[in-house]
């Protein structure tokens, strides 16, 4: 059941992205920025927490989930450290993912060459 909820939630978030791409000519870069930022805003408003409760990884794996982790970290940071936490909390919560993206991204780009497009 958990897996079905993740499948449906993640699938629906991607469908919203697909509709935006097809209907508005937004580039994929803008979609990624928009979704991450929306995730932060919806978490700040206390809405995205419910989506995560229902969808699990279906809500945390798509880019709004990255925004969710950022915002949740900032809120947690404020509770634990005060105003400093507003600045450090978001990156602390997402540090693993950001570092992994940088290191794995760099290594892959060094090791592999772009495939010729057929």
């Amino acid at each position, binding site marked *: 059941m958990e897996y079905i909820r993740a499948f449906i939630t993640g699938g629906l978030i991607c469908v919203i992205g697909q509709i935006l791409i097809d209907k508005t000519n937004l580039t994929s870069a803008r979609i990624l920025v928009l979704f991450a930022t929306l995730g932060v805003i919806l978490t700040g408003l206390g809405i995205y927490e419910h989506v995560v409760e229902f969808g699990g990884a279906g809500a945390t794996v798509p880019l709004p989930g990255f925004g969710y982790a950022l915002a949740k970290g900032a809120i947690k940071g404020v509770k634990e450290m005060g105003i400093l936490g507003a600045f450090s909390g978001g990156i602390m919560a*997402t540090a693993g993912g950001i570092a992994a993206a940088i290191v794995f991204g760099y290594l892959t780009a060094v090791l592999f060459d*772009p495939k010729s497009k057929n």
Partner: protein
Amino acid sequence: MESLDVKQKKINQEYQKYANSIPPKSNTVTNCAMAFLVGGIICTIGQAINNIAKNYYNMNTEEASATTSITLILIAALLTGLGLYEKIGKRAGAGSIVPITGFSNSIVSPAMEHKREGYVMGIGAKMFSVAGPVLVYGVSASVVVGLIHYFFIK
């Protein structure tokens, strides 16, 4: 002469209407179905990694979530390096862009493309052509949320 022009215009307009109405609609439906399927599958794999991290490695929710992100980012980086992620992306559209794997792809893909510009301004700089803006807006928004919590809610 004028009536011919008007006629031609009418035909053009009608054709435009026809062209606008039929093919994109059916495309959008197929695109959405593929996005749903692929996006759903990626999230289900994420859920599986998350559950393994929680149940077999006794991680809490945040640790498991970070582990899931890191694993998916690694898989997507490798698939991009091997040229397979683009193949999935051709069919999946947003289904391969919106998940965190798409974020990873958006780092590796331009970095590889601009490799010959060097290791600093090529790979080093171009890695962030999409990931950079995501971090700029995401992190800034999270600081704003934190500050609002500090001043108004806490």
